[in-house]
Every structure is written in C-alpha cells, then in structure tokens.
C-alpha cells in the first residue's frame, strides 16, 4: 500500500510538473530561508558556550554613575581578581586578563600582527582550552613564554613542532612557545591568536604593577564552584570597590558568560537585553516565512482538489477508509517536503558563503552534529504535517457519490479558509515591505547626516613601534607632505572611528557641586581641523610647536554647552590634575555612535601622551593607488619592522552601521522571499478560482462579456483581499517600526510613503500574478467549458 501510494505520489508530481515546481519551489525557498535564519540564530545562541563550565562562569562588571546616567562596563582594576579569589564566597577561579589587542610577532623574517591576550593560569582553567601540545598545568608561569593557537602556530612555523621554539614580541621580548591549543571557535567573545603571561604584561608596562582600585584596565572572569553560590557571591561583589578604596562609588556585579554576547545592553545597571532582541526578530521571521510557505502549500494543494476529487471518490468506492486517504495525502506532503528540503539544502549551501560575507561571520552546516539532524527532522515533520494537514482533511472529506457523479465540490468553506490564509500571507508581506523601507530610510538618513568632518579620501595609519617617537612622527609628516601623495597630515591619540578614553575628572569655574559629566578626551596634532575637514568655531588651534601648548586644551561645542561657558576661549579648566586653559572650540564631530548626540570632548596636544594614529588626506589630484603606495613606503622607511596598518576612514566608519545594515539586508532578502512565496500562494488561489468559475465565465462570454470585463471580474476579488491585508498590516507595521526607531536619538519621522509603497507594490504584484491565470481563462473558448455540463 505504502509503495503504491508512494508511486502514485511521484506520478502525480510528474504529471503536474508546473504545479509541483511552484509547490516545491515555494516550500524550498521557505525552508531555505528558515534554515539560514535558524543556523544564524543557533550560531549566535551558542556564543561562549563551548567551554565545559560555561554555565558557572561570570564576567565582572562595574556600574559607575556619570552625567546622571549609570554606565556598565566589563572593565575592572587589576587587583580585582585576587580580591575576588580570596574574599568572595564560592569562587573556584578568578582571573585577570587583558582584552585582545594587536601585537607584532616575529619569527625569522615572518612578521605577523596577531591578536594577543595577557592572562594568568586561572584564565586557561576557566575557559578550559583544549591543549594539543604542552602541559596545561605548567603554562603562563614563566614570564617569557607564549601559548599559540593551532592555526597561528602553523602560520608561524608551518609543519614544524613549535614547542620550545622562540618568537619575538614587538621586537623587544624573546618568548619561548610552551604550548599549542585548539583554535577558539569564531562564536566566542574572546578570540585570540596567542596567550602570554600576565607577568610579562607587568614586566612590559611598569604602571600596572601597583594595585589601583581607581584604574579599570582589565577583564576579570570568575568561575564559581556551584551556581548555588551565585546570589551570595553577587551580593558580596556589590561593595567591593568601596571596601577597598574610600570614596569609590563604583559597584561591581557578576554577569553570566553565557549572556555576555546576547545580553550586552544595560540600563541603570540592569541588563536590558541587547543582541537577543535582534535574534528574536530573526527567529520570528524564520517561523513566519516557514508558515507562509506552508500556507502556500495548503493553498496550492487544495486548489488542485478538483483534479483529485475523482481519485478520492473511486478509492472510497473500492473500499478505502478516510484514515487511509488522510495518510496517503500526508505521505504526499511529507514526500514533497522531503524533496523541498533537499532542494533547500542546495540553496542554503549555495547562499551561505554569500551570507557569511555579508554578515562577516562563519556560518556552516555541521553535518556531523546529531542535534542538527534532530532539528532537521523536527523541522521537516513539522512542515510536512502543517502543510499537509488541511489538504488531507479537506480532500479526504469528499463524498464519493457526489464527486463521481461530477457534482461540483462544495467549496464555500474552503475558499474562505484559503482567503484568510492569503490575507495572512499578504499582511506579513506588506509588514515586511513597510519595515524594510523604513529601515532603509533610517539608514540613509543617518548615513547622510553630517558627521562633522569629511571622511572621503581620509586615511588612518596606526602608530607602531618606532613611529611613536615624536621626532620620527614629525619627520614622517614632513616626508608625506613633501611627496605630494597627501595634502594634509595630522595625529590623533585614538582611532577616529572608535570609542576613545573618557573621564569625569574635569572641573571649571561655575561647575555645580556634585555635577558629574563624562568627557571624551583625545590628543590631536597640528593641522587637525584642516586635515579632517571640520571647523574651528572660536579661538585657535594648538601651535605646531606644541611645546608651548602643553597646558592648553580645546573643547568641542557639546562640551561648551554642557559646561555652560559663556566665554569658552580663555576659560580655565582643571583636567587630569592640572589647571589648563581652553584655547579654542571645535565644531562637534562624530567619534562614537552616529545615532546619538555628540558627547562633550576635551582635546589636548597629542605630543603630551603620544599619538595612536596618523591621519592623512590623500591628495585628490593624484592617482589614489600610487599615492597609497607612496604612503606605505614612507611609513616603512620610518618603521620597517611592522606591516603597515592603514585603512580608509569611511570604510571603518561603515562598521558603525553594521547592525542596521544587517537587519536591513536580511529583512530585504527574506521580505522578498516572503512576497515571492505569497505570490505563489495567490497564483494557486487564482488557478482554483478560475477553475471554479469556468462555467460562469463561459456563460458571461456567451452573453457578450469582453476579455477586459472578465479580467476585471476575476482580479477584483484578489485586489480586495490584498487591500484588506494592507489595511491590517499598516497598524501592525507602524507599531513594530515605531518601537524599533525609538531606540535611536536621531531618527526619521514615519511618513506615509512606505505605506503607499507597500500597497502599490503588493497590489501590483497581485494583479500581475493573478493575470497570468485569469487571462488564460478569459480568452478560453466558452464552448469547451460548457460542453461538459
């Protein structure tokens, strides 16, 4: 029986090739979209969950209040770890480590800039890295040792055994390789190429040797013996700053490692979600697309009922029970789902590289993972049964006598069910159109919003090695200018597209007692304003010979406003312990988030604390690539030991839009798919309606209706359905998108344009789809239809 039904199902598929193609194609696209989204969600979900005791591991956060706001950071003092290890209840390990930073590693003449972490032995124990070579108990003890990851070791030493070989760090320290560990999976918050002892860090940077509870400079990770200790330990953490340093108002708390990535947003010191919100959107999107594909399947299958009715009648007349018919139709839908799944796999494998590129991550299907197969099986069964259930119940309900005598199948109820389904599909599609349009508007708005400086042709070169020397920097500047490759050069104490340092330790005349304002601060070189293309609002820039300016600072407009300075130029400001004079005001420009107002900022001459970046404007009158080559050569002349680390500012600036761009692109793609699948559903309904109304149409034609009349008649109903769907979608989309927009300080106002767009697009698509079928019916010879009545 199974075999025969299986054969019949295949023959049916083959006989109605067009139908099968629409059906399988729609389902495959739906499944593929769903699978990609689910793989992405699974990838993000499994962040930081690879180590054995990840559920007992916590990150130490601190809450500190500034500008009346609570800021939560995972930055802690270097003495935190020891204190926690000794005094907090239930702690198994507490470790301090740096965040990964770029360090130059040299082996022979191989120079590779790598991501390095300085950490203690507890760090390795907490994260339980898998050692390939070397003794896990003995690593990180001797200051001059290093642990490499597998791929980094291969990069450095090829196939040779790296153990006990030496490498050179930043051209200063000779380190012996003590162990090799497995690569850290890409979905980890802490990713590195090599691990070095904390002792080495202390040796290199004298200032961290002394414990200071006021200096939050490292990451502290804690592992508890049992999670039962969490409440007590967390309560004890709260006052740890106060207990160790009088007057320190910061409070510490433990944030689970497993929530580090997904729950990264804090408000008033409490976790308020983060990336998890985006993940929820994607999960919902995945589910909705699959549902749309299933609905589509139902529509198409029931639309074909006319063709299957006779078979049902005959089967019942020769002794089939309803149950066996239901199982036959379910078998067919499961078979279709299976074929679609195979197709979906091909689609996923083809499109994954594209998505990886787009999202800048490494998604892949792990075929050896049992969970993957279980998930797939559940997904397939779910899809097969959801999409097959209604057609199976509907088709098997036919009464044999009626269908065999050629009575029209009673369709009122099933048509209205299908109408509801189609409306549902289009509500979703219209919502997606509206949301995507507004996301794009918002993205464009923010991208085109003036950022306060001109970022085109602006190039940043990281200061490395010998370049840090003031004299060498000045030499580089004059050489660069002389070459003609660049038109302007300046220095900055940080990457201009990234968060820099900030402080609340600023006072001035007129500051209210207890007022705390968080100032960004950055060191700037001469010609800063000219180079980046911003404006000087008042006063003057720092002098080229900045030795005379060591006690001068400059402010941005936001700072002047916050400080309520009436005469900013010449105002006395106490900053980092010294009385300084403000010499000028710079127009606000964006260094942090483009979505937020520019924060107050204090500038000081970069010569005081050194520059981290050389910013140059490429000469627009010259060939860009040859100019870049010249720049590289000149930098190499100054510091030959480091590869030149140079990037375009507008490229690094793009990173700020990554989350929104991701959301925009994904909703665009999957919105497109959803609309496409919905159209297939509509086509199915149109096919069915045309079949149903064949006789009516023929009679109308005999009575003198033109093709145009018939087309209007057939399309009218569908336009009505799509219009209803749009009307339902408008408020839904408005609520969703309004909520999304409300998280941005700078946002577009919601205009009626996206809504108009949605209704026009959806109706246009609907008409086009339906017309494919209705034109055929409208043009058919009425005699053919009437003959058989």
């Amino acid at each position: 029986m199974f075999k025969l039904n299986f054969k019949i199902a295949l023959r049916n598929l083959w006989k109605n090739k067009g139908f099968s193609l629409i059906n399988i194609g729609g389902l495959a696209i739906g499944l593929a979209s769903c699978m990609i989204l689910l793989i992405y969600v699974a990838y993000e979900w499994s962040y930081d969950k690879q180590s054995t005791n990840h559920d007992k591991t916590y990150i130490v956060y601190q809450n500190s209040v500034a500008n009346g706001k609570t800021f939560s950071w995972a930055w802690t003092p270097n003495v935190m770890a020891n204190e926690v290890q000794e005094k907090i209840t239930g702690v198994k390990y507490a470790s301090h480590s740096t965040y990964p930073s770029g360090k130059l590693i040299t082996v022979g003449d191989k120079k590779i800039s790598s991501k390095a972490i300085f950490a203690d032995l507890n760090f390795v124990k907490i994260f339980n890295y898998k050692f390939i070579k070397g003794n896990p108990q003995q690593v990180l003890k001797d200051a001059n040792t290093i642990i490499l990851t597998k791929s980094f070791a291969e990069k450095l030493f090829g196939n040779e055994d790296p153990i006990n070989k030496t490498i050179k760090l930043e051209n200063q320290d000779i380190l012996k390789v003590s162990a090799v560990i497995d690569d850290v999976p890409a979905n980890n918050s802490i990713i590195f190429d090599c691990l070095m002892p904390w002792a080495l860090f202390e040796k290199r940077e004298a200032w961290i040797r002394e414990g200071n509870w006021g200096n939050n400079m490292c990451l502290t990770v804690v592992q508890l013996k049992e999670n039962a200790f969490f409440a007590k330990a967390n309560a004890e953490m709260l006052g740890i700053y106060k207990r160790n340093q009088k007057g320190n108002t910061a409070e510490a708390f433990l944030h689970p490692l497993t929530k580090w990535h997904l729950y990264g947003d804090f408000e008033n010191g409490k976790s308020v979600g983060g990336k998890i919100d985006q993940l929820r959107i994607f999960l919902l999107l995945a589910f909705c697309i699959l549902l749309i594909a299933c609905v589509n399947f139902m529509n198409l299958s029931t639309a074909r009922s006319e063709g299957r009715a006779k078979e049902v009648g005959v089967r019942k007349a020769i002794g089939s029970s309803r149950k066996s018919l239901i199982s036959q139709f379910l078998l067919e839908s499961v078979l279709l789902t299976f074929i679609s799944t195979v197709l979906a796999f091909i689609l996923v494998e083809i499109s994954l590289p594209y998505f990886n590129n787009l999202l800048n991550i490494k998604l892949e299907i792990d075929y050896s993972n049992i969970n993957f197969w279980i998930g797939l099986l559940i997904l397939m069964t779910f899809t097969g049964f959801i999409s097959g259930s209604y057609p199976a119940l509907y088709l098997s309900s036919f009464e044999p006598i009626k269908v065999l005598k050629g009575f029209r199948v009673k369709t009122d109820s099933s048509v209205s069910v299908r109408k509801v389904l189609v409306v549902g599909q289009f509500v979703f599609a219209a919502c997606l159109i509206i949301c995507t349009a507004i996301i794009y508007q918002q993205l464009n708005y923010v991208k085109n919003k003036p950022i306060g400086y001109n970022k085109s042709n602006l190039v940043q070169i990281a200061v490395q090695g010998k370049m840090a020397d003031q004299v060498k920097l000045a030499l580089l500047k004059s050489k660069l200018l002389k070459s003609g490759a660049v038109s302007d050069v300046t220095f900055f104490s940080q990457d201009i597209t990234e968060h820099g340092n900030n402080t609340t330790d600023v006072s001035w005349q007129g500051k209210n007692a207890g007022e705390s304002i968080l100032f960004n601060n950055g060191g700037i070189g001469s010609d800063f304003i000219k180079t980046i293309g911003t404006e000087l609002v008042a006063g003057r820039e720092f002098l080229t010979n900045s030795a005379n300016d060591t006690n001068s600072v400059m402010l941005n407009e936001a700072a002047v406003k916050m400080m309520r300075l009436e005469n900013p130029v010449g105002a006395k400001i106490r900053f980092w312990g010294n009385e300084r004079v403000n010499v000028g005001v710079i127009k606000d420009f964006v260094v942090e988030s483009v979505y937020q107002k520019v924060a107050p900022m204090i500038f000081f001459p970069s010569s005081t604390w050194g520059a981290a970046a050389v910013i140059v404007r490429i000469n627009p009158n010259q060939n860009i690539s040859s100019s870049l080559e010249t720049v590289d050569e000149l930098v190499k002349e100054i510091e030959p030991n480091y590869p030149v680390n140079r990037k375009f500012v507008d490229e690094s600036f793009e990173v700020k839009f990554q989350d929104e761009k991701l959301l925009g692109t994904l909703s665009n793609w999957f919105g497109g798919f959803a609309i496409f699948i919905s159209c297939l559903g509509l086509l199915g309904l149109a096919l069915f309606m045309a079949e149903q109304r064949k006789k009516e149409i023929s009679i109308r034609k005999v009575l003198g209706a033109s093709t145009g009349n018939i087309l209007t008649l057939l399309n009218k109903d569908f336009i009505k359905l799509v219009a209803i769907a749009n009307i339902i979608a408008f408020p839904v989309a408005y609520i969703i998108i309004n909520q999304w927009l409300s998280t941005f300080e700078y946002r577009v106002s919601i205009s009626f344009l996206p809504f108009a767009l949605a209704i026009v697009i959806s109706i246009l698509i609907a008409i086009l789809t339906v017309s494919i079928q209705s034109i055929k019916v409208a043009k058919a010879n009425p005699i053919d239809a009437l003959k058989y009545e």
Partner: protein
Amino acid sequence: MIELKNIEKYYANKGVKSYILRHVTTSIKQGEFVSIMGPSGAGKSTLLNILGMLEEPTYGEYHFMGEDVTAMKERQRIELYRNHIGFVFQAYHLIDEMTVAENIEAPLLYKKIPGAERKSRIADILDRFNMVAKKDLFPNQLSGGQQQLVGIARALVAQPSIILADEPTGNLQSAQAEQIMDLFKKLNQEENITILQVTHSEKNAQYGNRILTIEDGVIKEDVTVK
C-alpha cells in the same frame, strides 16, 4: 441476501421534502441477475447507491446478508462492503495515475491481502480477461471497452458476492456493450455472482433474470425474465 423494507430517501429543502425513493420494499436472493430500469430521475441510481452503501437511506431498513446495515458503524460498513460488494461505473472511474495492474490491485490492498496472493489473483484475472499485455498501460491508453473491462476486473478481483453496476455500458459502442453484458451473464451463471445493474436499455435488461422498474421513486413492476 438483500432485504429492503420501506426504504425512503428525500432531501429537505426549506421545509419542502423532495422524494427520491418512496416505500421501496424488495428482496434480492443470492445468484440473481437483476436489472433496474426506469426513466431519468426515477431514483434508480440512488437505489443502487444505497444498496452499495455509498448513500444512506433517510428512513427504512436494509439487511445485507442478515445484518442491519443502517445500524452499523462506518468502520463495520466499510469492512462488509470491502468483502462483499464490487462496483462498476458508467464512466469506468479508473484512477488515472495507476496502471491497469495497479488499478486492479487497489481493492486488494484495502482488504490487506498478502503480496503473494495479490500477485496471483491479479495474474489470474488479467489472464482471464486477456489483458496480460496491457497490464502496465495507463487508463488513458486504453479504449472505452477495455477500460470498462479493467473496471469489472477491479470489481471482481476482491471476489465479491455481489456486483453493482451503474449503466456499465452507457458510454460504450454496441459491440463492446454486448461483450460486457455477455461477461456479466457468464459471471452470473458460472460463478453464481449476484449482479445488479441499472440500465436504460431493454436489450441489456434481457440478459438478467429479473427486471425492477422504478418510476418517481416507487417500484412499479417486478417481473421475472425467462
């Protein structure tokens, strides 16, 4: 074998009952070959469908082999029906997606007959109907008469005790019709299968041994043919 007592069938439409069958009382014995005749709309097919358990009477008693059909549950009815009744339709009603052999096999599958026996029975019946060469063809590759032969083969393969035929030759040319009617007669005489056919044709009715004439839902005549 079949006992009908006061069978009635009507459809109520806005309170008005339109009768299809009224007070039909008759009995059919094992081995009879009965033809039901009458004008269009007289209720012949409805009567046949009720006998074949595809429709339920609105009122009345129907005993099939001593069992009360109207009181049965659907499951029991399907069971009884699978084992004893074979249906032959005017429009053949073969399943287009199945080959000749598969069409014949279908009722055996529903009866859950084991594979080996299914094969031998199909081979047997194909042989008997001279259709071995056509067993892998699809219905649309056959002529109308051949399709109806398959239809009869399908009804016979389950070894029913009664065959119900609704104008089995209605769509056929006269030569083919004759062939089918001869086959029915042979089945009736040689294998003692009860046959009940609805027909418009006087000539076809003469093949049987009893003619029931129905007019306006009522049995008008019940004559035995010599």
